[in-house]
């Protein structure tokens, strides 16, 4: 990875390294002692170490060589359903999205009038979402970005989140990136969101007192009753889920995880869910976009 991209990460890591040193300071005893000078040099060494070791990128707990898409944990019939572009039920939403793309729906302009042919012009777009949106000053998912387009450029009401029409549009856009690696941008603008989501990922929540990492980093590949625990990547979404008998976004799937650990579910469209998706995309960076995926 190019060092410039992660240069912005270094201050944050240095800060956390320094917090660690400051907390240890009292252990070094009285004022003006040689121990304080030792502490200072330890802090300096930490800074240097942090700068050197993270010039490349922050460490991912699952290394790129061990990343596995959710579909690899699925049974052969589910894999076959996803692989067949006709049988894959998600393709119904893609088809519906293609119609919506060309249809202005009461507005002066359709998606196509600004963006052109989606097959060419939307290629690779979904790999970059969630992304920072300068106008609203927050991280937006692809669905939220489509709704922002509707209100800003089409003077239409936003489509209800999880509605078939919005899912169809995001499925259609995401499908144009199929096979391309997920590649979100972590820079100074997305860093605060990224850090909040990372903290959330490792925080215990709910009555079961579990963090995301307890299942998806410490125990992936093992079973919870009949289910194999996946690594928890979002590269297949929006996806058709057999359990739902419907097409849904990654937000819906994440809410199901909150419910699974008996925690309070954040609302659809909340900043928390968008930021969490940003962190998940970074965590699974390099996996191919599979939308429309099929999951159990």
């Amino acid at each position, binding site marked *: 990875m190019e060092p410039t991209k992660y240069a912005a990460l270094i201050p944050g890591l240095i800060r956390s390294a320094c917090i660690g040193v400051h907390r240890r300071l009292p252990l070094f005893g009285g004022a003006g002692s040689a121990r304080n000078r030792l502490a200072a040099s330890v802090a300096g060494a930490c800074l240097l170490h942090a700068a050197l070791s993270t010039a490349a990128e922050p460490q991912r707990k699952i290394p790129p060589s061990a990343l596995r898409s959710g579909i690899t944990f699925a049974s052969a019939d589910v894999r076959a359903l996803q692989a067949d572009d*006709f*049988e894959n*039920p998600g393709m*119904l*939403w893609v088809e*519906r999205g293609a119609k919506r793309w060309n249809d202005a729906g009461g507005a002066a302009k359709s998606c196509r009038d600004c963006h052109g042919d989606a097959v060419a012009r939307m290629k690779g777009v979904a790999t970059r979402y969630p992304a920072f949106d300068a106008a609203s000053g927050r991280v937006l998912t692809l669905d939220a970005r489509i709704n922002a387009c509707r209100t800003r450029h089409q003077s239409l009401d936003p489509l209800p989140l999880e509605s078939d029409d919005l899912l169809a549009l995001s499925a259609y856009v995401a499908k144009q990136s199929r096979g391309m690696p997920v590649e979100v941008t972590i820079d100074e603008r997305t860093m605060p969101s990224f850090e909040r989501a990372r903290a959330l990922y490792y925080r215990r929540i709910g009555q079961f007192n579990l963090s995301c990492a307890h299942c998806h980093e410490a125990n992936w590949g093992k079973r919870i009753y009949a289910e194999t625990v996946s690594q928890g990547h979002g590269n297949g979404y929006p996806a058709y889920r057999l359990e739902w*008998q*419907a097409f849904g976004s990654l937000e819906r799937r994440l809410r199901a995880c909150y419910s699974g650990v008996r925690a309070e579910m954040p609302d659809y469209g909340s900043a928390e869910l968008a930021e969490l998706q940003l962190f998940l995309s970074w965590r699974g960076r390099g996996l191919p976009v599979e939308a429309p995926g099929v999951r159990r």
Partner: protein
Amino acid sequence: MTARIQVPREVQRGAVFEVRIAIQHPMETGFRYDLMGKPIPKNVINTLVCRYGGAEAFRAELGSGIAANPYLQFYTVAEASGDLEFSWVDDAGERGSERVTVNVVE
């Protein structure tokens, strides 16, 4: 209701070919209850008919046991170029239709 139909681009006269159709539909079973405890009325596509060149080639009667967004597949014999016309109706009375042209070559 979005529907997709798939047939081969062209078929030899007299050959058996595969027809596939997928329809977006919730196929509500009638056995479920909403969050208020009220039963959700049954609403499934109960009949689907396919006409090939005007004559009925395939008919299916579907029920509660069919999953949402039903997918059907059948085979028929290529007699002459013409349209495959699908039409279906659900318990709520909503009708859908979709057609595709079959090109038969010698």
